[in-house]
C-alpha cells in the first residue's frame, strides 16, 4: 500500500474514531458547571485520560524530542525535570481548590482575594496566552502534515482546527471523552516508535555507548553553552509554569472527589513518565542512527527525521501521536480561553444564577467564542511567528505569574492586595522579554520575586 494512502487512511480513521467514539455530546441537562468542569463528577478513568493527553502537547512530543536530538540530556534536565516538578507540586492544590465552587481559575483568584479586577486581569492573560498556545498546536500539526502529504500548511492546519472544534463544542465532558482516545494514540504511537528504534539500535545501553563514542556532550545533563545555573533556572521556570497551569488545576476541580484527584495525579505521573522515557529513547536513538538532520524549523526536521529513521507504520504512529497531542491540548486550552472570554470577562454572567433558557443562550455564546478563538489561532498559525517552544515559554510564564503565588505561596489572602503586585509583575515580565530580549522563563523569576516582594513587603500600606 502506498505510504501516502496509508497516511491518508490513518487520518481518515482518526477522524471516524473521533466522530464515533469520542462523539460530541451536547448533554440534555447542560449547564455551565457541566460544560466547564464536567459537573465536578469526572471519574478517575476519563480524568487520567484528559489529564495526560492535555499534558502531552505537540510542544512536548515534537519540541522535547528535537531538543533531545540536538542537545542530548540537557533537554531532559531543562524541560522534563521542570515539568515533573510541577506535577509533584500539584497534590498541594487539590484541597485548596476543591473547597471553592469556582468554575475557573480567574474566578477562584477573584473570589479568594475579593478583587474582581484580579479576575479580569488573569482572564485577559489566560485568553492571550492560550490563544497563542493553540497556535503552536495548529502550526506543529499543519507543518508536519503539510510536509508529509505535500499540501499547503493551511489545509493541513484546517484539519486539526476542525478536530479541535468538534471536540470542544461539547465542553469538558466531550473533551475528556476524546482525550481518552487521544491518550491511547499518543501512548501507542510513542511506544511503537520507541520499540522499533530500540530494536534497530539493539538496546538503550548500545545507544548510550554509541553516544559516548560519537557525541559525549549529549550525555551531559547541563548545557555546555549555557551555565548550569541557567539550565536550572529554566527547569525551575518550566516547573512553576506547569504547577500553576489552569489546564491541570481545572481538571483537579472536575474530579468527583479529592481522592479521585489524588488517584489521577498518581496514575498520570506513571503514564507521563513512561511517555517521556519513550520520547527520550526516540530522540537519542534517532541521533545515533541518523545524526545531523536539520531543517528550517523543528517541525520539518522532526518530519524528516522520523521518516528517515522509522519504517512507514511506526512513523505514522508517531505522527498520529503528534496529531492526538495537538488536538488534546488545543481543545482543553480552547475551552479555558472561551471560559475566560464568556464567563470571567462578563461580570454579569458570574453573578446570576440563570434558568435553562438563559443558560442555553450562555452556552451558545461559549460555542461561538470557541469558534472565534480557534479561527483567530488558525489565522495566526499561518503567520511568521517565533518557534513553538518560544511561544510556549511566553504562555507558560504569563500563566505562572498570574497563579503561582496565589496557588502555592500565599496562605492567608488579603482582600484587594494582590492586584497591584500582579500587574507590576506582568509589566516587568513584558519589559524584560520584549525590551531587553531576556528569555521568558528567565524573566519569570524576577517577575515572581517582584510580585512576592510587593505583596509581602511591610511597606505595602504606602500604596
Amino acid at each position, binding site marked *: 500500500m502506498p505510504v501516502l494512502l496509508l497516511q491518508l487512511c490513518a487520518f481518515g480513521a482518526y477522524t471516524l474514531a473521533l466522530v464515533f467514539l469520542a462523539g460530541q455530546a*451536547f448533554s440534555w441537562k447542560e449547564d455551565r458547571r457541566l460544560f466547564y468542569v464536567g459537573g465536578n463528577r469526572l471519574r478517575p478513568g476519563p480524568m487520567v485520560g484528559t489529564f495526560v493527553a492535555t499534558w502531552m502537547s505537540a510542544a512536548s512530543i515534537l519540541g522535547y524530542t528535537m531538543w533531545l536530538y540536538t542537545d542530548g540530556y540537557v533537554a531532559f534536565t531543562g524541560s522534563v525535570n521542570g515539568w515533573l516538578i510541577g506535577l509533584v507540586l500539584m497534590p498541594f492544590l487539590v484541597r485548596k481548590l476543591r473547597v471553592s465552587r469556582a468554575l475557573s481559575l480567574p474566578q477562584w483568584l477573584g473570589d479568594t482575594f475579593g478583587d474582581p479586577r484580579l479576575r479580569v486581569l488573569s482572564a485577559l492573560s489566560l485568553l492571550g496566552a492560550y490563544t497563542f498556545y493553540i497556535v503552536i498546536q495548529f502550526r506543529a500539526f499543519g507543518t508536519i502534515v503539510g510536509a508529509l502529504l505535500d499540501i499547503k500548511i493551511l489545509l493541513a492546519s484546517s484539519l486539526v482546527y476542525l478536530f479541535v472544534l468538534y471536540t470542544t463544542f461539547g465542553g469538558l465532558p466531550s473533551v475528556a471523552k476524546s482525550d481518552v482516545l487521544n491518550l491511547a494514540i499518543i501512548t501507542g504511537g510513542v511506544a511503537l516508535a520507541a520499540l522499533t528504534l530500540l530494536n534497530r539500535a539493539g538496546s538503550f545501553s548500545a545507544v548510550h555507548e554509541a553516544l559516548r563514542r560519537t557525541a559525549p556532550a549529549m550525555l551531559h545533563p547541563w548545557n555546555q553553552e549555557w551555565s548550569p545555573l541557567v539550565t536550572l533556572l529554566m527547569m525551575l521556570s518550566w516547573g512553576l509554569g506547569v504547577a500553576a497551569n489552569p489546564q491541570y488545576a481545572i481538571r483537579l476541580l472536575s474530579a468527583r472527589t479529592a481522592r479521585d484527584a489524588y488517584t489521577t495525579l498518581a496514575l498520570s505521573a506513571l503514564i507521563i513518565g513512561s511517555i517521556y522515557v519513550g520520547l527520550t529513547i526516540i530522540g537519542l536513538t534517532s541521533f545515533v542512527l541518523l545524526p545531523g538532520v536539520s531543517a528550517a524549523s523543528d517541525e520539518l526536521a522532526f518530519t524528516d527525521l522520523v521518516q528517515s529513521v522509522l519504517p512507514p507504520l511506526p512513523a505514522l504512529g508517531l505522527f498520529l501521536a503528534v496529531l492526538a497531542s495537538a488536538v488534546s491540548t488545543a481543545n482543553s486550552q480552547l475551552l479555558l480561553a472561551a471560559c475566560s472570554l464568556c464567563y470571567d470577562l462578563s461580570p454579569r454572567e458570574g453573578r446570576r444564577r440563570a434558568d435553562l433558557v438563559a443558560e442555553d443562550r450562555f452556552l451558545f455564546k461559549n460555542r461561538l467564542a470557541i469558534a472565534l478563538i480557534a479561527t483567530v489561532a488558525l489565522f495566526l498559525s499561518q503567520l511568521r511567528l517565533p518557534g513553538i517552544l518560544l511561544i510556549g515559554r511566553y504562555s507558560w510564564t504569563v500563566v505562572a505569574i498570574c497563579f503561582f503565588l496565589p496557588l502555592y505561596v500565599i496562605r492567608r489572602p488579603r482582600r484587594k492586595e494582590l492586584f497591584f503586585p500582579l500587574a507590576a509583575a506582568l509589566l516587568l515580565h513584558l519589559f524584560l522579554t520584549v525590551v531587553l530580549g531576556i528569555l521568558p522563563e528567565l524573566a519569570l523569576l524576577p517577575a515572581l520575586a517582584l510580585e512576592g516582594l510587593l505583596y509581602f513587603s511591610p511597606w505595602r500600606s504606602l500604596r
Partner: protein
Amino acid sequence: MRRPRSWSTETRIKALLMAAAIGLTSLTVGTALTQGFLERVQEARILFDNTRSAAENLRADRTEVLLQTLAPSWREVSPGQSGEEIKSADGMVRRFSLDRTAILTALVYHQRYVLVVGLIGLLVAVELAVFLAYSLTRPMKILAWGCEQMRSGRWVRLPPLSRSPYELEALHEAFNEMVDNLQQWQDFQKEAARVERLAALGSVAAAVAHEVKNPLASMRIRLDLLRRGVSPQDAEHLAVLGSEVDRLNQTVSQLLTYARPGTPLFGPVDPGEILTWTEQMTASSCRAANIRLLREVEADCPSLWGDAQQLKQVLLNLTLNAVSAQPGGGRVILRAFRHRNGIALSVTDEGTGIPAELLERIFDPFFTTRPEGTGLGLSIVHRIVGGHGGTVSVETSPAGTTFTVLLPATSAEQDKER
C-alpha cells in the same frame, strides 16, 4: 428534568446526517479513486501496446529509451517470471508487468488535495449535522423545561424563537398562549372562590350584626340615662363603656354595610365634591395625627356615574387608612383625574408601604395589621367599587402607597339625563 431513557432526537438526527455525510464522502472519494485508477491502468495498457508496436520495428539496442517511457506504470521482470512480452526486431524478448502499486501511488499523490478536502468536507458536514440537530432540539428541550416548570407550579413564558423552523415557533407560541389562558383561568377561579367565600361570610355577618345592633342601641340609651346623677368617678367609667359600645356599633354598622351595601343609586357625581367632603370629614383626624391633607382635582374633570354616598364611603375609608399608615405625620394626597378608561380617584400616603406578601390579602374581610382595626374598610371599598363596575389598584413601595379607584365616566347619554 429526568434523564432520557433512549436515544435523543439530537443523537438520531446527528447519527443519520453523519452516516449520510460519511457515506457520501466515502462514495465520492472511492469513486474518484477507482475511476482514476482504472483510467490510469487503461492508459498504461495503451502505452504498453504502442511501445510494443514501436519496439517490434527496432533493434534491441535502440529500444532502451523507448522502454524507459513505460515506467513507473510497468516494471521489467526477471526472465523466469511471468509478464507481457515486448519483442524487438532482432528477436530479443523482454518481459514487463503492470505495477499497480506505482499507479496507485501516483494517483494518490495526484489526488491528495481531493482526499484531504474530502476529509475536511466530512468534518464540516459532521459539525453542521451536530449544529442542525442542536438547533432543532434546543426549542424542544426548552419546551420540556417549560412544562416541567409548570408542573412544579412555577409560571413561565418561553422566549420568542428566532431563526427556528416555524413549526417550533408555533409550538412555543401555543405553549405561551396556553400559559396565559391557564393563568387567566386560575385568576378567575380564585376570584370566583373569593366572591363565594365573601358572600357566605356576608350572610352570616349580616345575621349576626342584625341581632347585635338592637341590643347595642338599647345599651347606649341605658348608659345615657345612667349618666345622670352618678359620681364623677362612675361617670368616667360610664364614658369608657359608652365609647366601647359606640365602637362596637360602628363595627356592626360596617359589617352591615359590607354585607348589604344596598343597591347603588346611580347618578352623575362630581369627583371634586367627593374629595371636598372627604377632606372635611377627615380634617380632625388629620390634625390629630399631624398630617397635611392635599387635594388635587384635574381641571375640567368630568363627572362620574355612580352612587355619591357609596363613593364618599370609599374615599373616606381609603383616607382614614392613609392617615393611620403614618403615625409620625406626613402628607396624604387626594387626587381626581381623567384616565383613558374613565375617572380615577386616588389616595396617596407617605407611609412605609405594604409588604409584598400581604398585598394579595388586603381586600379580604377582617384582614388587618392594626390592633384596633376591624379589617373591613378595604373590603367595603372593594365591594362598592366592584358594584360600580370599577377597579381598585394599589402601588406600594417603602416610600408610600397609592390606592387608585378607577370608575366609569358619565357617558354622553347620561350627561343628557343630567
